[in-house]
Protein backbone atom coordinates (compact mmCIF):
# COMPACT_ATOMS: atom_id res chain seq x y z
CA UNK A 1 0.00 0.00 0.00
CA UNK A 2 1.20 3.49 -0.83
CA UNK A 3 0.06 6.32 1.40
CA UNK A 4 0.58 8.99 -1.29
CA UNK A 5 -1.59 7.10 -3.76
CA UNK A 6 -4.17 6.42 -1.10
CA UNK A 7 -4.31 10.07 -0.09
CA UNK A 8 -4.77 11.18 -3.70
CA UNK A 9 -7.57 8.72 -4.38
CA UNK A 10 -9.38 9.61 -1.15
CA UNK A 11 -9.13 13.32 -1.95
CA UNK A 12 -10.22 12.62 -5.53
CA UNK A 13 -13.26 10.74 -4.26
CA UNK A 14 -14.24 13.77 -2.21
CA UNK A 15 -13.65 16.02 -5.25
CA UNK A 16 -15.90 13.86 -7.37
CA UNK A 17 -18.66 13.93 -4.77
CA UNK A 18 -18.51 17.74 -4.88
CA UNK A 19 -19.35 17.55 -8.56
CA UNK A 20 -22.90 16.45 -7.81
CA UNK A 21 -23.89 19.49 -5.73
CA UNK A 22 -21.96 21.44 -8.37
CA UNK A 23 -24.11 19.87 -11.05
CA UNK A 24 -27.16 20.74 -8.96
CA UNK A 25 -26.20 24.43 -9.15
CA UNK A 26 -25.27 24.15 -12.83
CA UNK A 27 -28.71 22.74 -13.58
CA UNK A 28 -30.51 24.75 -10.90
CA UNK A 29 -29.45 28.06 -12.38
CA UNK A 30 -30.71 27.02 -15.80
CA UNK A 31 -34.35 26.53 -14.82
CA UNK A 32 -36.98 29.10 -13.90
CA UNK A 33 -36.99 30.27 -10.30
CA UNK A 34 -40.14 28.24 -9.58
CA UNK A 35 -38.33 24.95 -10.30
CA UNK A 36 -34.82 25.45 -8.93
CA UNK A 37 -35.31 23.45 -5.75
CA UNK A 38 -36.65 20.43 -7.61
CA UNK A 39 -33.63 20.61 -9.87
CA UNK A 40 -31.29 20.63 -6.87
CA UNK A 41 -33.29 17.84 -5.27
CA UNK A 42 -32.96 15.50 -8.22
CA UNK A 43 -29.17 15.64 -7.77
CA UNK A 44 -29.34 15.31 -3.99
CA UNK A 45 -31.77 12.41 -4.40
CA UNK A 46 -29.27 10.66 -6.66
CA UNK A 47 -26.66 10.87 -3.92
CA UNK A 48 -29.06 9.24 -1.49
CA UNK A 49 -30.35 6.44 -3.67
CA UNK A 50 -27.17 5.52 -5.51
CA UNK A 51 -24.93 5.90 -2.47
CA UNK A 52 -26.92 3.23 -0.63
CA UNK A 53 -27.32 0.94 -3.64
CA UNK A 54 -23.58 1.08 -4.31
CA UNK A 55 -22.85 -0.43 -0.90
CA UNK A 56 -25.54 -3.08 -1.27
CA UNK A 57 -24.96 -4.42 -4.77
CA UNK A 58 -23.46 -1.71 -6.96
CA UNK A 59 -19.80 -2.30 -6.28
CA UNK A 60 -20.28 -6.05 -6.60
CA UNK A 61 -22.11 -5.77 -9.90
CA UNK A 62 -19.48 -3.47 -11.34
CA UNK A 63 -16.33 -4.96 -9.89
CA UNK A 64 -17.25 -8.40 -8.56
CA UNK A 65 -16.12 -11.65 -10.19
CA UNK A 66 -17.34 -11.79 -13.75
CA UNK A 67 -20.30 -14.11 -14.22
CA UNK A 68 -19.49 -16.71 -16.88
CA UNK A 69 -16.35 -14.82 -17.97
CA UNK A 70 -18.43 -13.00 -20.59
CA UNK A 71 -17.37 -9.56 -19.43
CA UNK A 72 -20.99 -8.46 -18.99
CA UNK A 73 -21.74 -8.52 -15.29
CA UNK A 74 -20.01 -8.89 -11.96
CA UNK A 75 -21.48 -11.09 -9.25
CA UNK A 76 -23.99 -8.79 -7.49
CA UNK A 77 -23.83 -10.67 -4.21
CA UNK A 78 -20.07 -10.99 -3.89
CA UNK A 79 -19.37 -7.88 -1.82
CA UNK A 80 -22.87 -7.27 -0.48
CA UNK A 81 -22.62 -4.63 2.23
CA UNK A 82 -18.84 -4.32 1.73
CA UNK A 83 -18.12 -5.88 5.14
CA UNK A 84 -15.60 -8.27 3.60
CA UNK A 85 -13.49 -5.34 2.38
CA UNK A 86 -12.75 -3.69 5.71
CA UNK A 87 -9.55 -5.53 6.62
CA UNK A 88 -6.01 -4.16 6.42
CA UNK A 89 -5.16 -6.75 3.80
CA UNK A 90 -7.87 -5.59 1.40
CA UNK A 91 -5.88 -3.67 -1.17
CA UNK A 92 -6.43 -2.84 -4.80
CA UNK A 93 -3.12 -2.06 -6.47
CA UNK A 94 -1.39 0.35 -4.10
CA UNK A 95 -4.51 1.63 -2.34
CA UNK A 96 -7.06 0.14 0.04
CA UNK A 97 -9.88 -1.46 -1.94
CA UNK A 98 -12.35 0.64 0.00
CA UNK A 99 -10.72 3.83 -1.32
CA UNK A 100 -11.43 2.55 -4.82
CA UNK A 101 -14.96 1.56 -3.77
CA UNK A 102 -15.62 5.08 -2.49
CA UNK A 103 -14.09 6.73 -5.55
CA UNK A 104 -16.19 4.67 -7.92
CA UNK A 105 -19.34 5.29 -5.86
CA UNK A 106 -19.09 8.98 -6.73
CA UNK A 107 -19.05 8.14 -10.45
CA UNK A 108 -22.26 6.16 -10.13
CA UNK A 109 -23.88 9.02 -8.22
CA UNK A 110 -23.06 11.80 -10.66
CA UNK A 111 -23.92 9.71 -13.71
CA UNK A 112 -27.45 9.25 -12.43
CA UNK A 113 -27.71 12.93 -11.45
CA UNK A 114 -26.64 14.00 -14.95
CA UNK A 115 -29.77 12.44 -16.44
CA UNK A 116 -32.10 14.67 -14.44
CA UNK A 117 -31.33 17.71 -16.58
CA UNK A 118 -33.46 16.30 -19.37
CA UNK A 119 -36.68 16.27 -17.36
CA UNK A 120 -36.65 19.62 -15.57
CA UNK A 121 -39.93 21.06 -14.32
CA UNK A 122 -42.16 18.05 -14.97
CA UNK A 123 -41.06 14.84 -13.23
CA UNK A 124 -42.57 13.80 -9.91
CA UNK A 125 -39.87 13.40 -7.32
CA UNK A 126 -40.76 9.93 -6.01
CA UNK A 127 -40.87 8.32 -9.46
CA UNK A 128 -37.56 10.03 -10.25
CA UNK A 129 -35.96 8.35 -7.23
CA UNK A 130 -37.48 5.03 -8.31
CA UNK A 131 -36.12 5.47 -11.82
CA UNK A 132 -32.73 6.55 -10.46
CA UNK A 133 -32.44 3.36 -8.40
CA UNK A 134 -33.64 1.06 -11.17
CA UNK A 135 -31.39 2.73 -13.73
CA UNK A 136 -28.33 2.46 -11.50
CA UNK A 137 -28.93 -1.26 -11.00
CA UNK A 138 -29.98 -2.23 -14.51
CA UNK A 139 -27.87 0.16 -16.58
CA UNK A 140 -25.03 1.88 -14.75
CA UNK A 141 -23.61 -0.96 -12.65
CA UNK A 142 -23.31 -3.38 -15.59
CA UNK A 143 -21.91 -0.72 -17.94
CA UNK A 144 -19.38 0.31 -15.29
CA UNK A 145 -18.30 -3.35 -15.27
CA UNK A 146 -17.89 -3.33 -19.06
CA UNK A 147 -15.76 -0.19 -19.01
CA UNK A 148 -13.99 0.07 -15.67
CA UNK A 149 -13.36 -3.54 -14.55
CA UNK A 150 -9.94 -4.54 -15.81
CA UNK A 151 -8.71 -8.11 -15.95
CA UNK A 152 -6.53 -9.20 -13.07
CA UNK A 153 -3.32 -10.80 -14.28
CA UNK A 154 -0.58 -12.73 -12.55
CA UNK A 155 3.11 -11.97 -12.96
CA UNK A 156 3.30 -14.11 -16.09
CA UNK A 157 0.53 -12.10 -17.72
CA UNK A 158 -2.14 -14.77 -17.46
CA UNK A 159 -5.65 -13.52 -16.67
CA UNK A 160 -6.65 -14.64 -13.20
CA UNK A 161 -9.90 -12.70 -13.00
CA UNK A 162 -11.93 -11.58 -16.01
CA UNK A 163 -13.09 -7.96 -16.26
CA UNK A 164 -15.49 -6.08 -18.54
CA UNK A 165 -15.64 -6.65 -22.29
CA UNK A 166 -15.14 -3.06 -23.44
CA UNK A 167 -12.06 -2.47 -21.29
CA UNK A 168 -10.39 -5.79 -22.03
CA UNK A 169 -11.70 -7.71 -25.07
CA UNK A 170 -12.56 -4.66 -27.18
CA UNK A 171 -9.72 -2.58 -25.70
CA UNK A 172 -11.52 0.70 -26.28
CA UNK A 173 -9.87 3.52 -24.34
CA UNK A 174 -12.17 5.22 -21.86
CA UNK A 175 -9.99 6.55 -19.10
CA UNK A 176 -12.57 8.13 -16.81
CA UNK A 177 -15.98 7.47 -18.32
CA UNK A 178 -16.79 8.96 -21.72
CA UNK A 179 -18.92 5.90 -22.44
CA UNK A 180 -19.84 4.68 -18.96
CA UNK A 181 -20.72 8.14 -17.65
CA UNK A 182 -21.53 10.59 -20.41
CA UNK A 183 -22.83 8.56 -23.35
CA UNK A 184 -24.63 6.40 -20.81
CA UNK A 185 -26.32 9.32 -19.05
CA UNK A 186 -26.94 11.19 -22.31
CA UNK A 187 -28.71 8.25 -23.94
CA UNK A 188 -30.82 7.75 -20.81
CA UNK A 189 -31.67 11.46 -20.84
CA UNK A 190 -32.92 11.20 -24.40
CA UNK A 191 -35.09 8.21 -23.50
CA UNK A 192 -36.55 9.99 -20.47
CA UNK A 193 -37.25 13.18 -22.42
CA UNK A 194 -39.15 11.12 -24.98
CA UNK A 195 -41.15 9.20 -22.38
CA UNK A 196 -42.07 12.23 -20.27
CA UNK A 197 -42.82 14.46 -23.23
CA UNK A 198 -42.49 18.19 -23.62
CA UNK A 199 -43.06 20.81 -20.97
CA UNK A 200 -46.35 22.65 -21.45
CA UNK A 201 -44.66 25.80 -22.64
CA UNK A 202 -42.02 24.17 -24.84
CA UNK A 203 -40.79 25.06 -27.42
CA UNK A 204 -42.60 28.43 -27.51
CA UNK A 205 -41.11 29.39 -24.17
CA UNK A 206 -38.26 27.09 -23.15
CA UNK A 207 -37.84 29.04 -19.90
CA UNK A 208 -34.94 31.40 -19.41
CA UNK A 209 -32.22 30.43 -16.95
CA UNK A 210 -33.17 32.21 -13.73
CA UNK A 211 -29.66 32.53 -12.35
CA UNK A 212 -26.63 32.44 -14.63
CA UNK A 213 -24.23 33.10 -11.74
CA UNK A 214 -25.44 29.75 -10.30
CA UNK A 215 -24.68 28.14 -13.65
CA UNK A 216 -21.14 29.49 -13.56
CA UNK A 217 -20.73 28.51 -9.91
CA UNK A 218 -21.86 25.00 -10.80
CA UNK A 219 -19.55 24.81 -13.80
CA UNK A 220 -16.67 25.93 -11.57
CA UNK A 221 -17.41 23.28 -8.96
CA UNK A 222 -17.70 20.69 -11.72
CA UNK A 223 -14.34 21.67 -13.19
CA UNK A 224 -12.67 21.60 -9.76
CA UNK A 225 -14.16 18.22 -8.96
CA UNK A 226 -13.38 16.94 -12.44
CA UNK A 227 -9.65 17.06 -11.67
CA UNK A 228 -10.43 14.35 -9.14
CA UNK A 229 -12.68 12.57 -11.64
CA UNK A 230 -10.00 12.37 -14.33
CA UNK A 231 -6.69 12.59 -12.51
CA UNK A 232 -8.01 10.45 -9.67
CA UNK A 233 -8.76 7.73 -12.21
CA UNK A 234 -5.00 7.11 -12.39
CA UNK A 235 -5.62 5.54 -8.95
CA UNK A 236 -2.14 6.74 -7.99
CA UNK A 237 -0.30 10.01 -7.43
CA UNK A 238 1.89 9.59 -10.47
CA UNK A 239 2.75 10.83 -13.97
CA UNK A 240 -0.52 9.59 -15.44
CA UNK A 241 -2.44 11.67 -12.91
CA UNK A 242 -0.35 14.74 -13.75
CA UNK A 243 -0.77 14.36 -17.52
CA UNK A 244 -4.48 13.83 -17.02
CA UNK A 245 -4.78 16.94 -14.90
CA UNK A 246 -3.03 19.12 -17.48
CA UNK A 247 -5.12 17.68 -20.30
CA UNK A 248 -8.28 18.30 -18.28
CA UNK A 249 -7.24 21.92 -17.93
CA UNK A 250 -6.34 22.66 -21.53
CA UNK A 251 -9.10 20.71 -23.26
CA UNK A 252 -11.64 22.54 -21.17
CA UNK A 253 -10.04 25.91 -21.87
CA UNK A 254 -10.12 25.20 -25.60
CA UNK A 255 -13.73 24.01 -25.47
CA UNK A 256 -14.76 27.22 -23.75
CA UNK A 257 -13.17 29.23 -26.54
CA UNK A 258 -14.71 26.94 -29.16
CA UNK A 259 -18.23 27.35 -27.78
CA UNK A 260 -17.83 31.12 -27.49
CA UNK A 261 -16.54 31.39 -31.04
CA UNK A 262 -19.47 29.38 -32.40
CA UNK A 263 -21.88 31.61 -30.49
CA UNK A 264 -20.22 34.82 -31.57
CA UNK A 265 -20.52 33.80 -35.20
CA UNK A 266 -24.03 32.35 -34.97
CA UNK A 267 -25.76 34.66 -32.50
CA UNK A 268 -23.55 37.74 -32.51
CA UNK A 269 -22.63 37.52 -28.82
CA UNK A 270 -20.29 35.51 -26.64
CA UNK A 271 -22.46 34.65 -23.61
CA UNK A 272 -21.86 33.68 -20.00
CA UNK A 273 -24.11 30.68 -20.48
CA UNK A 274 -22.02 29.67 -23.47
CA UNK A 275 -18.79 29.89 -21.51
CA UNK A 276 -20.18 27.74 -18.70
CA UNK A 277 -21.57 25.25 -21.22
CA UNK A 278 -18.27 25.15 -23.08
CA UNK A 279 -16.50 24.30 -19.83
CA UNK A 280 -18.74 21.29 -19.27
CA UNK A 281 -18.57 20.17 -22.90
CA UNK A 282 -14.77 20.24 -22.75
CA UNK A 283 -14.71 18.32 -19.48
CA UNK A 284 -17.01 15.69 -20.95
CA UNK A 285 -14.92 15.31 -24.09
CA UNK A 286 -11.56 14.99 -22.39
CA UNK A 287 -12.83 12.45 -19.85
CA UNK A 288 -12.29 9.36 -22.01
CA UNK A 289 -9.21 10.83 -23.70
CA UNK A 290 -7.28 12.47 -20.88
CA UNK A 291 -4.62 9.79 -20.48
CA UNK A 292 -4.19 8.93 -24.14
CA UNK A 293 -3.59 12.30 -25.81
CA UNK A 294 -0.86 14.90 -25.57
CA UNK A 295 -1.73 18.40 -24.29
CA UNK A 296 -1.88 19.58 -27.93
CA UNK A 297 -4.21 16.70 -28.70
CA UNK A 298 -6.29 17.72 -25.70
CA UNK A 299 -6.62 21.24 -27.09
CA UNK A 300 -7.87 19.79 -30.37
CA UNK A 301 -10.34 17.47 -28.63
CA UNK A 302 -11.66 20.35 -26.52
CA UNK A 303 -11.90 22.93 -29.29
CA UNK A 304 -13.68 20.61 -31.71
CA UNK A 305 -16.13 19.43 -29.07
CA UNK A 306 -16.81 22.98 -27.88
CA UNK A 307 -17.92 24.00 -31.36
CA UNK A 308 -19.86 20.79 -32.04
CA UNK A 309 -21.75 20.89 -28.73
CA UNK A 310 -22.61 24.57 -29.20
CA UNK A 311 -24.28 23.55 -32.45
CA UNK A 312 -25.74 20.31 -31.04
CA UNK A 313 -27.85 21.99 -28.36
CA UNK A 314 -30.20 23.27 -31.06
CA UNK A 315 -30.91 19.73 -32.30
CA UNK A 316 -33.79 19.42 -29.86
CA UNK A 317 -35.66 22.24 -31.57
CA UNK A 318 -35.09 20.55 -34.90
CA UNK A 319 -36.25 17.10 -33.82
CA UNK A 320 -38.82 18.22 -31.26
CA UNK A 321 -37.74 16.47 -28.05
CA UNK A 322 -37.66 18.55 -24.88
CA UNK A 323 -34.26 17.75 -23.37
CA UNK A 324 -34.67 20.68 -20.99
CA UNK A 325 -31.08 21.38 -20.03
CA UNK A 326 -29.29 19.82 -23.01
CA UNK A 327 -28.02 16.59 -21.48
CA UNK A 328 -28.10 15.10 -24.97
CA UNK A 329 -26.42 18.06 -26.63
CA UNK A 330 -23.65 18.33 -24.05
CA UNK A 331 -23.16 14.87 -22.51
CA UNK A 332 -24.24 12.45 -25.22
CA UNK A 333 -22.71 14.45 -28.07
CA UNK A 334 -19.70 15.51 -25.98
CA UNK A 335 -19.16 11.94 -24.79
CA UNK A 336 -19.38 10.60 -28.34
CA UNK A 337 -16.96 13.26 -29.56
CA UNK A 338 -14.41 12.56 -26.84
CA UNK A 339 -14.67 8.80 -27.23
CA UNK A 340 -14.33 8.89 -31.01
CA UNK A 341 -11.62 11.56 -31.07
CA UNK A 342 -9.45 9.20 -29.02
CA UNK A 343 -9.32 7.12 -32.19
CA UNK A 344 -7.93 10.13 -34.05
CA UNK A 345 -5.76 11.99 -31.53
CA UNK A 346 -4.48 9.24 -29.22
CA UNK A 347 -0.70 9.18 -29.07
CA UNK A 348 1.66 6.56 -27.74
CA UNK A 349 3.58 9.42 -26.14
CA UNK A 350 0.76 9.71 -23.58
CA UNK A 351 0.65 7.39 -20.55
CA UNK A 352 -2.22 5.16 -21.68
CA UNK A 353 -2.06 5.99 -25.36
CA UNK A 354 -1.75 3.96 -28.49
CA UNK A 355 -1.28 5.74 -31.82
CA UNK A 356 -4.57 6.89 -33.29
CA UNK A 357 -5.36 7.70 -36.90
CA UNK A 358 -3.53 11.05 -36.92
CA UNK A 359 -0.45 9.51 -35.29
CA UNK A 360 0.01 6.71 -37.80
CA UNK A 361 -2.03 4.08 -36.00
CA UNK A 362 -4.61 3.64 -38.73
CA UNK A 363 -8.26 2.91 -38.01
CA UNK A 364 -7.70 0.20 -35.43
CA UNK A 365 -8.37 2.30 -32.35
CA UNK A 366 -11.12 4.32 -34.02
CA UNK A 367 -13.35 1.32 -34.67
CA UNK A 368 -12.79 0.05 -31.15
CA UNK A 369 -13.89 3.42 -29.82
CA UNK A 370 -16.93 3.45 -32.10
CA UNK A 371 -18.07 -0.04 -31.09
CA UNK A 372 -17.75 0.80 -27.40
CA UNK A 373 -19.64 4.06 -27.83
CA UNK A 374 -22.48 2.58 -29.88
CA UNK A 375 -22.84 -0.41 -27.58
CA UNK A 376 -23.24 1.75 -24.48
CA UNK A 377 -25.51 4.19 -26.31
CA UNK A 378 -27.83 1.44 -27.54
CA UNK A 379 -27.90 -0.48 -24.25
CA UNK A 380 -28.56 2.62 -22.20
CA UNK A 381 -31.18 4.05 -24.54
CA UNK A 382 -33.23 0.86 -24.83
CA UNK A 383 -33.09 -0.09 -21.16
CA UNK A 384 -33.77 3.50 -20.06
CA UNK A 385 -36.80 3.60 -22.34
CA UNK A 386 -38.11 0.38 -20.84
CA UNK A 387 -37.50 1.50 -17.26
CA UNK A 388 -39.06 4.92 -17.85
CA UNK A 389 -42.15 3.37 -19.45
CA UNK A 390 -42.36 0.95 -16.55
CA UNK A 391 -42.23 3.72 -13.95
CA UNK A 392 -44.71 5.74 -15.97
CA UNK A 393 -47.14 2.81 -16.18
CA UNK A 394 -46.88 1.71 -12.57
CA UNK A 395 -46.71 4.94 -10.57
CA UNK A 396 -46.91 7.75 -13.14
CA UNK A 397 -43.96 9.99 -13.91
CA UNK A 398 -45.26 13.49 -14.69
CA UNK A 399 -46.79 16.16 -12.53
CA UNK A 400 -50.21 17.45 -13.60
CA UNK A 401 -50.45 20.34 -16.05
CA UNK A 402 -51.77 22.54 -13.21
CA UNK A 403 -48.87 21.68 -10.94
CA UNK A 404 -46.43 22.35 -13.74
CA UNK A 405 -47.94 25.78 -14.23
CA UNK A 406 -47.88 26.61 -10.52
CA UNK A 407 -44.29 25.42 -10.22
CA UNK A 408 -42.79 22.11 -9.25
CA UNK A 409 -41.01 23.45 -6.16
CA UNK A 410 -44.27 24.39 -4.51
CA UNK A 411 -46.30 21.39 -5.62
CA UNK A 412 -43.71 18.61 -5.18
CA UNK A 413 -41.69 19.91 -2.25
CA UNK A 414 -43.93 22.48 -0.50
CA UNK A 415 -41.10 24.99 -0.68
CA UNK A 416 -40.12 27.99 -2.75
CA UNK A 417 -36.56 29.14 -3.27
CA UNK A 418 -36.87 32.88 -3.02
CA UNK A 419 -38.81 35.19 -0.71
CA UNK A 420 -38.30 38.75 -1.84
CA UNK A 421 -41.58 40.51 -1.37
CA UNK A 422 -43.71 41.17 1.69
CA UNK A 423 -45.23 37.71 1.54
CA UNK A 424 -47.12 36.99 4.72
CA UNK A 425 -47.28 33.55 6.26
CA UNK A 426 -48.02 32.03 9.61
CA UNK A 427 -47.08 28.64 10.97
CA UNK A 428 -49.98 26.32 10.31
CA UNK A 429 -49.15 23.02 11.93
CA UNK A 430 -46.08 22.31 13.92
CA UNK A 431 -45.16 21.68 17.49
CA UNK A 432 -47.06 24.25 19.60
CA UNK A 433 -44.78 26.92 20.98
CA UNK A 434 -45.43 26.12 24.62
CA UNK A 435 -44.51 22.49 24.03
CA UNK A 436 -41.17 23.56 22.55
CA UNK A 437 -40.65 25.76 25.56
CA UNK A 438 -41.40 22.86 27.95
CA UNK A 439 -38.89 20.67 26.17
CA UNK A 440 -36.26 23.38 26.35
CA UNK A 441 -36.98 23.80 30.05
CA UNK A 442 -36.53 20.08 30.50
CA UNK A 443 -33.21 20.06 28.71
CA UNK A 444 -31.96 23.00 30.75
CA UNK A 445 -32.88 21.21 33.94
Amino acid at each position, binding site marked *: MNSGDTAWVLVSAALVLLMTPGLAFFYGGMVRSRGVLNMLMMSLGSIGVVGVLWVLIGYSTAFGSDIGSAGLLGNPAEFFGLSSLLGEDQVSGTIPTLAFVGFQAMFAIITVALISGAIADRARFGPWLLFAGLWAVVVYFPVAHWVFAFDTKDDAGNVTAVGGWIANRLAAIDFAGGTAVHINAGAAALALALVLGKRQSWPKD*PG*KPHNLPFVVLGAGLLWFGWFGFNAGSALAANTTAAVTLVNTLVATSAATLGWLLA*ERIRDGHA*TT*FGAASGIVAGLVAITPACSSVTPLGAIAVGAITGVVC*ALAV*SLKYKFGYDDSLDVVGVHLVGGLMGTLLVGLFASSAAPAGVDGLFYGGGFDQLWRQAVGAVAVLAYSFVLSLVLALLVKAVVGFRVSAEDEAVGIDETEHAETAYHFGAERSARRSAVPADEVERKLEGSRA
Partner: protein
Amino acid sequence: MKLVTAIVQPSKLDDVKDALERLGVLGMTVSQTQGYGRQKGHTEVYRGAEYAVDFIEKLRVEVLVDESNVDKVVDGIVTAARTGRVGDGKVWVTSVDTVVRVRTGETGVEAI
Protein backbone atom coordinates in the same frame (compact mmCIF):
# COMPACT_ATOMS: atom_id res chain seq x y z
CA MET B 1 -52.84 71.01 -8.92
CA LYS B 2 -51.29 68.64 -11.34
CA LEU B 3 -49.80 65.16 -11.18
CA VAL B 4 -46.69 64.83 -13.29
CA THR B 5 -46.01 61.18 -14.12
CA ALA B 6 -42.73 60.21 -15.73
CA ILE B 7 -41.56 56.83 -16.99
CA VAL B 8 -37.77 56.97 -17.00
CA GLN B 9 -34.73 54.76 -17.39
CA PRO B 10 -33.73 53.34 -14.00
CA SER B 11 -30.22 54.72 -14.46
CA LYS B 12 -31.57 58.28 -14.72
CA LEU B 13 -33.39 58.35 -11.38
CA ASP B 14 -30.64 60.21 -9.55
CA ASP B 15 -30.43 62.86 -12.27
CA VAL B 16 -34.20 63.33 -12.22
CA LYS B 17 -34.25 63.53 -8.43
CA ASP B 18 -31.45 66.13 -8.40
CA ALA B 19 -33.22 68.22 -11.03
CA LEU B 20 -36.50 68.16 -9.12
CA GLU B 21 -34.77 69.10 -5.88
CA ARG B 22 -33.14 72.09 -7.63
CA LEU B 23 -36.61 73.15 -8.75
CA GLY B 24 -37.87 73.06 -5.19
CA VAL B 25 -39.99 69.93 -5.51
CA LEU B 26 -40.26 68.55 -1.99
CA GLY B 27 -41.41 65.00 -2.53
CA MET B 28 -41.93 62.28 -5.07
CA THR B 29 -43.14 58.72 -5.41
CA VAL B 30 -41.01 56.20 -7.29
CA SER B 31 -42.10 52.73 -8.28
CA GLN B 32 -40.57 49.94 -10.33
CA THR B 33 -42.50 49.13 -13.44
CA GLN B 34 -42.21 47.43 -16.82
CA GLY B 35 -43.35 48.32 -20.26
CA TYR B 36 -42.51 49.04 -23.85
CA GLY B 37 -42.98 51.69 -26.47
CA ARG B 38 -42.90 51.66 -30.22
CA GLN B 39 -39.50 50.04 -30.42
CA LYS B 40 -40.60 47.05 -28.33
CA GLY B 41 -38.06 45.39 -26.06
CA HIS B 42 -34.83 43.57 -26.77
CA THR B 43 -33.64 40.08 -27.63
CA GLU B 44 -31.67 37.77 -25.33
CA VAL B 45 -29.90 34.58 -26.40
CA TYR B 46 -29.48 31.49 -24.20
CA ARG B 47 -27.64 28.54 -25.76
CA GLY B 48 -28.68 29.76 -29.17
CA ALA B 49 -32.37 30.10 -28.25
CA GLU B 50 -33.59 33.66 -28.76
CA TYR B 51 -36.01 35.22 -26.32
CA ALA B 52 -37.90 38.42 -27.08
CA VAL B 53 -38.10 40.50 -23.93
CA ASP B 54 -40.97 42.92 -24.53
CA PHE B 55 -41.36 44.40 -21.10
CA ILE B 56 -38.38 46.47 -20.11
CA GLU B 57 -37.62 47.55 -16.54
CA LYS B 58 -38.47 51.22 -15.99
CA LEU B 59 -39.11 53.55 -13.09
CA ARG B 60 -42.31 55.52 -12.67
CA VAL B 61 -41.80 58.86 -10.95
CA GLU B 62 -44.86 60.73 -9.73
CA VAL B 63 -44.78 64.31 -8.51
CA LEU B 64 -47.63 66.49 -7.30
CA VAL B 65 -47.04 70.11 -8.26
CA ASP B 66 -48.79 73.43 -8.19
CA GLU B 67 -50.12 74.46 -11.59
CA SER B 68 -47.65 77.33 -11.87
CA ASN B 69 -44.71 74.95 -11.61
CA VAL B 70 -45.83 72.34 -14.10
CA ASP B 71 -43.90 73.47 -17.14
CA LYS B 72 -40.56 73.84 -15.44
CA VAL B 73 -40.97 70.51 -13.63
CA VAL B 74 -41.78 68.75 -16.90
CA ASP B 75 -38.83 70.45 -18.59
CA GLY B 76 -36.58 69.54 -15.69
CA ILE B 77 -37.54 65.85 -15.84
CA VAL B 78 -37.26 65.64 -19.61
CA THR B 79 -33.84 67.26 -19.61
CA ALA B 80 -32.53 65.13 -16.75
CA ALA B 81 -33.93 61.84 -18.06
CA ARG B 82 -32.78 62.17 -21.64
CA THR B 83 -29.99 59.93 -22.94
CA GLY B 84 -30.99 60.36 -26.58
CA ARG B 85 -31.42 56.64 -27.09
CA VAL B 86 -34.57 54.64 -27.67
CA GLY B 87 -36.45 53.88 -24.46
CA ASP B 88 -35.93 57.15 -22.60
CA GLY B 89 -39.57 57.14 -21.55
CA LYS B 90 -42.53 59.53 -21.39
CA VAL B 91 -43.81 62.33 -19.19
CA TRP B 92 -47.44 63.27 -18.89
CA VAL B 93 -49.50 65.64 -16.80
CA THR B 94 -52.95 65.01 -15.33
CA SER B 95 -55.24 67.21 -13.31
CA VAL B 96 -55.75 66.50 -9.64
CA ASP B 97 -58.98 67.43 -7.86
CA THR B 98 -57.93 67.14 -4.26
CA VAL B 99 -54.84 66.49 -2.20
CA VAL B 100 -54.98 65.85 1.54
CA ARG B 101 -51.99 65.55 3.88
CA VAL B 102 -52.80 62.56 6.04
CA ARG B 103 -51.00 63.76 9.17
CA THR B 104 -52.57 67.22 9.45
CA GLY B 105 -55.64 67.14 7.25
CA GLU B 106 -54.38 70.12 5.21
CA THR B 107 -55.76 70.24 1.68
CA GLY B 108 -54.87 71.70 -1.72
CA VAL B 109 -51.53 73.39 -2.40
CA GLU B 110 -50.75 73.38 1.33
CA ALA B 111 -50.74 69.60 1.27
CA ILE B 112 -48.24 69.23 -1.58
